[in-house]
């Protein structure tokens, strides 16, 4: 079976700035892979390349076996329906209730009958531990609750691959821990591929099967969590041990 995400010699620039420089990366299916790295090292860019929301200057991106930038628009839309994404700011529709947010892909993408939509939304809200908030609007939820609802919406269509953009960013430590637990338990329960980008080392330690670290536009290190955690590489240790960068 093909990898969940595969980058071959991918380069991405914004103006003169090289964000990803000739990157090769393979993310296996059925595991939680966490991509770590300081801010501005191209973690979010990598996710957007994998979904076709951004195009690279060079290289090939394969997601779920589909060449993202060789695919026709129709095939790209079909590919995205096999993926879910949890955005950093959740990207919930502010004008819709929580129920309608989670129901949105079921109604608009899968065209499911309303009875099935109601059953599935109830199931998803239960899964993320918020069975009683369906009639609220997102602005009446806490940051952690909004994150849970965004996860419920991201997995509504039973995707093969779910991507998380800084899932614990802006949350307090306890809420972050509960989101980590939810990510871990959901991945185990569904058995699908989760790709998480974060700079939260503790979160990475709790949820990752594999860890990659991006540095200076390159994948500096990639492997099973235990291997990366035991690494003696100076840059990896500095990041994991939260050492401040040396100023020259």
């Amino acid at each position, binding site marked *: 079976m093909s990898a969940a995400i595969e980058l071959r010699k991918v380069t991405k620039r914004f103006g003169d700035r090289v964000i990803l420089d000739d990157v090769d990366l393979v993310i296996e299916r059925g595991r939680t892979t966490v991509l770590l790295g300081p801010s501005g090292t191209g973690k979010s860019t990598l996710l957007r390349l994998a*979904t076709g*929301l951004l195009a690279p200057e060079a290289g090939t991106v394969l997601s779920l076996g589909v060449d993202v930038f060789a695919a026709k628009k129709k095939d790209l*839309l*079909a*590919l*995205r*329906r096999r*993926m*879910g*994404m949890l*955005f*950093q*700011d959740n*990207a*919930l*529709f*502010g004008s819709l209730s929580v129920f309608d947010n989670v129901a*949105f*892909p079921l109604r*608009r*993408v899968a065209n499911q009958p309303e009875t099935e939509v109601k059953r599935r939304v109830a199931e998803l809200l239960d899964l993320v531990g918020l069975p009683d908030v369906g009639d609220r609007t997102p602005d009446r939820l806490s940051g952690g609750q909004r994150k849970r609802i965004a996860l419920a919406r991201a997995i509504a*269509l039973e995707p093969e691959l779910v991507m998380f953009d800084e899932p614990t960013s802006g949350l307090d430590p306890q809420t972050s821990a509960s989101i980590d637990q939810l990510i871990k338990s959901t991945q185990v329960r569904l058995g699908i591929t989760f790709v998480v980008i974060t700079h939260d080392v503790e979160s990475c330690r709790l949820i990752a099967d594999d860890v990659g670290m991006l540095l200076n536009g390159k994948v500096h290190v990639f492997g099973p969590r235990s291997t990366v955690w035991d690494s003696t590489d100076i840059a990896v240790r500095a990041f994991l041990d939260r050492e401040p960068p040396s100023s020259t």
Partner: protein
Amino acid sequence: MTDPRIARLTTTISTALLWPLRFGAFFAVAMKAAVSGPPAKDTLLLTVRLLVRSLPVVLVVTFFSGAMLTVQAAASMASFGAASMSGLIVGFGGVREVFPLLAGGSMAARTGAELASQLQAMRVTRQVEALEMMGLDPLRLLVAPRLIACTIGGPLCVIAAMVSGLVGAQLVGVFQLGIDRGAMWDALLSTLGTIDVMVGLVKGVFLGLIVGVVACFEGFAADDSGPASVGRAANRAVIRGMIFVCSASLTLSMLIYGQLLVNE
């Protein structure tokens, strides 16, 4: 190292030069999305919303404009002893030009600003990306219903503007200037024909479409980002919408009434 002021100026100039190209490309894909059949329920709701939001502004603006035109027309014609005929000027000048123009301008100010800020806010908060990630086409889902709502709402606003303007003219003519009620109404309507209403409807369709396309472009496709871009998008939608409405109104008048004069 380039001076940052020069870099900013260069960016501003190149953005301005590229604007027509980008707008043209957006217009083409937006029209394609509109004819591909956007969600009917969304389109209906947006049309009702547009009318509820824009009609009060259109009615108030054109009511006062009709009244003002009457005062000015009466003052000008009083020197010829023909103040009672001021309705003639308001009738054809207002109905053919001023009221449709003000209806378009009011739509640009009310609906254009709202649509642009809505769409830009959805981009800033990544709601548009969320739709793309679900495998949905945001052009079909967000832009197309708004374009159709504006195109339907435009002529309705123009008709409402004509009626409101004439009522404003009639009230001021009768109660302020003391013109006979029947004479004022006859003067207002005497130069108007079905063709003027039809032309008004055609103008309404075009002006509504223009307001919609400009607003959707500024909210959906303009090269801008960050929270403050929401206000900037609304601002651009109003200013550019007004300019487009004025130039389109003149062009349509030249094409339609200019042709009628040639045929006479």
